[in-house]
């Protein structure tokens, strides 16, 4: 039993090495799966960006709608009062309302552009992360292999220390030159 201890320890070392290999392999698979998920998330991000951009576009249209409403109201009030809507103060007011509307449309348009750009940028980052995860997978796999080899190496070393590969005291004490 005493003599078998080194060999049992060696066998367990081999099992530990296999575990390390498997752990690396699973880590690699996990990282590839993560990469795919991040890619998918990137597509969603792009889609969400487009949807947000449409919201800003809709705000521009609503703004123009309000301008038209306001100008129409003014024109109607001017007509009811027999006032020329195309001149004078009415015209000035309408022009002012129109300029506000134009400014809102411009702002909404800029917001649409920014939102679309940010979504695209986010998607690009996610794509990059996915690429990194994919690149890391083989590294994790190799790490598992190396860990397994290290464990085995360590086990071999320990085995050698305890004489698992054969050992006996190499020499006996004597006195050089002493007649036998």
């Amino acid at each position, binding site marked *: 039993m005493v003599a078998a201890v080194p060999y049992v320890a060696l066998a*367990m070392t081999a099992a530990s090495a296999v575990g390390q290999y498997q752990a690396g392999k699973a880590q690699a698979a996990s990282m590839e799966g993560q990469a795919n998920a991040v890619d998918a998330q990137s597509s969603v991000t792009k889609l969400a960006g487009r949807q947000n951009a449409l919201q800003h576009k809709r705000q521009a249209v609503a703004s123009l709608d309000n301008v038209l409403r306001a100008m129409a109201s003014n024109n109607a009030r001017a007509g009811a009062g027999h006032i020329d809507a195309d001149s004078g103060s009415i015209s000035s007011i309408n022009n002012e309302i129109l300029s506000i509307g134009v400014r809102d449309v411009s702002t909404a348009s800029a917001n649409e552009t920014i939102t679309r750009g940010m979504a695209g940028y986010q998607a690009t980052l996610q794509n990059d992360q996915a690429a990194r995860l994919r690149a890391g997978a083989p590294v994790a796999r190799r790490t598992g292999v190396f*860990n397994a080899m290290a464990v085995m190496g360590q086990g071999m070393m*320990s085995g050698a220390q*305890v004489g698992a590969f054969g050992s006996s005291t190499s020499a006996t004490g004597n006195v050089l030159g002493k007649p036998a």
Partner: protein
Amino acid sequence: MAARDLLKPQSSLGSVAPISLPGVSMPTGPDPLLAATANMANSLSQRIGQMSQTMFKVAGTQAEAKGAAAGVQNAPSIEEIKWAKKHGQSVTLPGDAGSINIQEQAAYASSLKLTEARYGSLAREAALGEVTKAFMSDGEIKPDLLQKRLNDVLESYTGSLASVSQAGAAKLDIDLRNQFNNQLVAYSREWHSKDTKQRRAKAVARAHNILPEVAGYVVGDSKTRQDVGIAEHATSMLEREVLNMTVEGVPTSTIEAYKTTFQKRLDNALITSVTQWSQGSEAGGPLEAFSKLSKGTAPEGVMDAFESLPASKQNTLKTDIWAAHTREQSIEEDRQKVIDDAHDAVVEMHTTNFYSALLTGDHGTMRTIIDTLTVVDPDTAGRLIPLLSKSGDAGTDDAGIVRDISLRIAEGQTDPTQRTYIKYDIISAMKDGTLTTGTGKHLMQNLSASRSHVFKAAQAELKSKTRYNTAMNRINPGPEDDAALRLYERVMAKLHLASADPEADLMVVVETEIENEQGRIHAAMVEEARETLASIPLFNSVEIVEQTTEGLKNGTIKPFGSVKILDYQRALRAVKTINKWGTAK
């Protein structure tokens, strides 16, 4: 309504709002299954690794124990180490210190440890032998020699071990060096303690060995005491011994006690010398000696000796000499008292007889008594003479004349001329009627009988010329005293013989016999001195004694011990006698 219509186309543009997407969020973290698989595999691997490490550890312990046992079993034996050291060889150890194998390492380590211990044991054994030898040597092995031997032991064993293990040799060197140093310090302390005690004891013994010789430092002529003095080296000897004891660390109290003893002995010798001088003829008696010492007129050597004494002892010595004088005086007073008592008794007896004769009218007896009392006690005789006249005696005596003539006879007027004058005075007084015939006849008879006074005068002259009294009273008489006493006895015998002849002149007899007998006595004493000298083995000739005396004076001869000094003094006395009265042969 119209406005609403007009606005219709614009209003239709905002009627369709973009779809509001639900919050779609993709799971971007690690796949749970795969993560669990990886964790499980990793954890399992670590667990199994720990188990294997534990088992390796157990196996390592087993290998270490096995290697240690093998190392101990196969380590060089003490005999092998002794042989290797003796032949300058190196020993090899089992195992391999450079091996990865624990068993090999343990074998080497245990054998090295055992070998180091064996080297240490052998070195300690050898050192113990050296230390034991040193202790048994009774101080012959000095600490520096023991140190050298211990160093040899140390270097030989550490040097031999160094061929196996430099580190072990260095460690052994430190261990043994500390231990040997402690042993060396202990031995050194004991050695120095013993050495110091021995040196102190030797110094004290040496100093005490010269104490019996101290009396010999006081040199001088035992007879005359004229050159009594202290040999110069007495003080230097004391200083030398004190210095020696001081250097050797003898306690101050011991040195002081020694100095006291030395000084006491020296003082005693000086006192003895001065005392002997004071009792000698040269001093002229204790009173004269006292006076000379007080005035500083004693001989130079005696004064040197006397002045070498402390003031208190000088006083004591003078007191003793004075006491000797007082004793002499006391003896004389006692003697005088006896004489006086006898005189009083004689006077009383004659007075009683006179009164008895007065009652019976015996004038002859009364005159005889008066004659006797005139010699013994003239005053009483003077008082009784008138009673004789009143008692009916024929004629009348002049008491003053009777008294005067009786005194002149009693005082020893023995000179022939004086005797003639006395006779003339008696006859004249009888013719003048101041003396009765009977009284005159009695006075004439007394004058004739006064020859006893002549004898006494001759005896006194003899005593004076021979210095009889001085010789008799000397406590420690010398040869001259002996000679004086012998001379007195011889001449006294001749004087007795001569006194039988009424016509003999006793004074002439004294002078003649002194001259005749002195030479004979001196010759006899010289002969005796020669015999004495011949009987003293170390000083049996005049030359030897004189050379010795000269050597003692100039310091070329060391003073003698107490026994030898007595022989020397006897011999010196004999030589003085020979040189004084004989011929040195």
